[in-house]
C-alpha cells in the first residue's frame, strides 16, 4: 500500500432517484487508496446502485464521483479506470477464457497480450483452462475468470458486485481468502458489495453498513461489531440483545439505568444516544459477552457486573458453544452463547439463572428507533 491517492474513491453528495423512489440518499464517502472496502446491506438498500454509479453504469441524480483527483462523474464506463466483477460474472459466452481475459487489453489497443494473459490466468490458477469456453467451467472457476478479466487491466479501483453470491458455502469461504490474498498482492483499491455480514467482516478493512439508501455506520469490522450506533447495525451484524431502559443517574463516566427491577451500568462513551435523567435508552449486549450462572450460585457473581435474572426457555448444543434463549422480565428472548468449557449440568430449560456481563461490553442506542430494525433483513438473506 502506498500513500499515493490516485486510487482514492471520493463520493460527494452522490444520490440516485428513480421517479419518486430514492434508491440512494445523497451520501459522502471516501475509500482510501489500497483499502478493501465493503458496502454491506440487505437487498434493495442501495449498495449495488452506489457501486454502479462508481463504475459509470448508473448516472447519479446528484453529486460527483472522483477517482483520485479526477472528476469522472460525466465519463462513460469505458473511459473510467475502474473494472467490475459482476454478480453473474457476465463472461462473454462466445469467447474462450483467454479472449475473455484479453478483452480489456485488446480494447485499449495492446497488441502483445499473450504473456500478460497467461500470467494473470496463472495468478487465478486457471492456466490449463485458457482455451475452454465459459460454460465449460465450474462456478468457482468462472468467478476467477471474472476477477482475472477485471484485474488484468490494472484498474485504479476494482468493483465487486456480490461476486461470491452464486457459490456454495465452502467455495465462498475459500474464494474470500483468495480475493483477500489477491488484493494484498496487487494493492489495488477494492470496493466490495455484499449482503453477507460475515463476508464483509472477514474480508474488508472498512465496512459501510447501508440501509434504505443511507449509510448507517462506517468503520472497521471490530468497531462496527463492538460499538454499533444504530439498532439496524446492532441487529444486522451478528445478534444483539436490546433492553429498553430508563436513565437513572450519572456516576462519573458511567450512566446508571433502570430496567425491569434492576440496575444496569453503561459507560457514557459507549452510548450513542442523548442521555437525560428519566429519558429512555436501548441497552445492548452481544450474546457471547454474557455469562450464565445458576440462580442458586448468584452469590458467587463478582460485584460490579450487570445482572439480569431469567429462566432458560431452550438451549441448543452447537459443539463449540451452547446457545441459550432466556426468558427474562426485561427481554422476552435473551440470547446467550456460552463456550463449552465447563458446563454446568443444571443449566437446562426451565432452570432459573442470572445473566451477568461486564459494563464495558454494554452499549447504548437511541430508544426512538425500531428495536427490531435489521432483524428481518438478516433473516431474509
Amino acid at each position: 500500500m502506498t500513500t499515493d491517492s490516485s486510487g482514492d474513491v471520493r463520493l460527494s453528495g452522490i444520490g440516485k432517484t428513480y421517479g419518486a423512489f430514492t434508491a440512494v440518499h445523497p451520501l459522502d464517502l471516501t475509500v482510501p487508496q489500497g483499502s478493501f472496502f465493503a458496502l454491506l446491506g440487505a437487498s434493495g438498500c442501495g449498495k449495488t446502485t452506489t457501486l454502479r454509479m462508481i463504475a459509470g453504469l448508473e448516472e447519479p441524480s446528484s453529486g460527483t464521483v472522483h477517482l483520485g483527483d479526477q472528476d469522472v462523474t460525466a465519463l462513460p464506463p469505458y473511459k473510467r479506470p475502474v473494472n467490475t466483477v459482476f454478480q453473474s460474472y457476465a463472461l462473454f459466452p462466445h469467447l474462450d477464457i483467454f479472449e475473455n481475459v484479453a478483452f480489456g487489453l485488446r480494447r485499449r489497443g495492446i497488441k502483445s497480450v499473450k504473456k500478460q494473459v497467461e500470467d494473470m490466468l496463472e495468478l487465478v490458477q486457471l492456466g490449463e483452462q485458457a482455451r475452454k469456453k465459459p460454460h465449460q467451467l465450474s462456478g468457482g472457476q468462472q468467478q476467477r475468470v471474472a476477477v482475472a478479466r477485471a484485474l488484468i487491466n490494472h484498474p485504479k479501483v476494482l468493483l465487486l458486485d456480490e461476486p461470491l453470491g452464486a457459490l456454495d458455502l465452502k467455495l465462498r469461504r475459500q474464494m474470500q481468502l483468495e480475493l483477500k490474498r489477491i488484493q494484498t498482492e496487487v494493492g489495488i483499491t477494492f470496493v466490495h458489495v455484499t449482503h453477507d455480514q460475515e463476508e464483509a467482516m472477514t474480508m474488508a478493512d472498512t465496512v459501510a453498513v447501508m440501509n434504505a439508501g443511507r449509510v448507517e455506520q462506517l468503520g472497521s469490522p471490530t468497531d462496527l461489531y463492538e460499538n454499533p450506533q444504530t439498532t439496524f447495525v446492532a441487529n444486522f451484524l451478528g445478534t444483539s440483545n436490546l433492553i429498553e431502559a430508563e436513565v437513572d443517574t450519572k456516576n462519573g463516566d458511567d450512566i446508571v439505568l433502570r430496567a425491569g427491577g434492576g440496575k444496569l451500568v453503561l459507560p457514557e462513551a459507549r452510548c450513542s444516544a442523548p442521555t437525560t435523567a428519566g429519558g429512555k435508552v436501548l441497552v445492548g449486549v452481544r450474546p457471547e459477552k454474557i455469562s450464565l450462572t445458576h440462580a442458586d450460585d448468584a452469590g458467587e457473581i463478582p460485584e460490579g457486573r450487570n445482572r439480569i435474572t431469567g429462566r432458560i426457555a431452550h438451549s441448543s448444543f452447537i459443539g463449540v458453544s451452547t446457545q441459550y434463549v432466556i426468558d427474562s422480565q426485561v427481554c422476552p428472548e435473551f440470547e446467550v452463547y456460552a463456550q463449552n468449557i465447563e458446563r454446568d449440568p443444571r443449566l437446562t430449560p426451565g432452570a432459573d439463572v442470572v445473566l451477568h456481563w461486564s459494563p464495558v461490553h454494554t452499549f447504548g442506542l437511541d430508544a426512538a428507533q425500531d428495536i427490531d430494525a435489521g432483524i428481518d433483513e438478516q433473516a431474509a438473506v
Partner: protein
Amino acid sequence: MATLTEAPPPPPPASPPAPSAPEKKPPRKRGRLTPYWLLLPGLLWLVVFFALPMIYQASTSVQTGSLEEGYKVTWHLATYWDALSEYWPQFLRSVLYATAATVLCLVLGYPLAYLIAFRAGRWRNLIMVLVIAPFFTSFLIRTLAWKTILADSGPVVSFLNTVHVLDVTDWLGWTSGDRVLATPLAVVCGLTYNFLPFMILPLYTSLERIDVRLHEAAGDLYATPLTTFRKVTFPLSMPGVVSGTLLTFIPAAGDYVNAELLGSTDTRMIGNVIQTQFLRVLDYPTAAALSFILMAAILLMVTLYIRRAGTEDLV
C-alpha cells in the same frame, strides 16, 4: 408404408441376465414402444406430404411424351440439362433478387429487432404485433397493394423522380425511365417487404436472449458502444442472422408472386418459369426437373453458407 408402421421391432426382452438380479422385472413392452407411437403421426405426415410427392416429382422429371399421348418414364435425364441451359438466366436472376432482398431485409430488420429487444421497454409487445400484423392479410393482397404504392403516377414514384433517385437507379439498370413498376427494383421491394418478418423474428429471438449485463461488462472493459456491438452483440446474434437469412433467402429464391405482380417479362424468376411450365405449357417433366435443380442449388448454397458462418461454434 407398412414397413414404417411396423418398422422398429423391439428386440425380444432379454432373458434375465443372471441370478444376481432375479427380482428385476423385464421392462414392460408397451412402455418401450411408446416413443415410436408418438413418432407415428409426424412420420405419416412426412411420408404423405413430403416423401411421396418427392418420389412422384422425381419420376415425372424423367418422363417423356406429350399431354395428348401421355407421359411415360423413359429415364430421359437430358431434360435436366435442357432445362438448365434454357433457363439459367432465370436461375441466376432468382439468386440475385433473393440475395438482394435478403441483404435489404437484414439491413432493415436488424435495427428494428435490436430496438425491440433492448430499447422498446413496454412498447415491445405492441411493436411485435405490428411486425406480425401483415400476416393477417393475404400474401396476394399485400403484394397487389405494392402495385398501387409503386404506381407510375403515385406519390412514391413522383417523389423519387423529383429527387432524381430514379435517374441513378435507371443508370444502374434497376428501374427503367420514369417507372418503378415492372422493374427489378419493384420485384426486390416486394420480396423484401413480404419476407421481412421472417428476418425480424429470428433476429429478435437471438438478440433478446443476450444478457444486457454483457453490454455493461464490455463497456466496463473499455469497449465503446460501437465496439461492444461489433465484438459482443453481433457475434452473439449470429444464430439469428443465419436463420433469418435462410428463412428469407430460401422462400424468396423460389417465389413467383412478386415477379408476376410487380415485374415484367424481363424480371421473370425461376418460380415463374416453373409455374408457367406446370400450368400453361403443361410440360410436366421440364417443370419437375427445374424444381429439382432449384432445390439442389438452394441446398448447396445453404450448406456452403452454414459451413462458412460456423454457427455450430456458438453457444
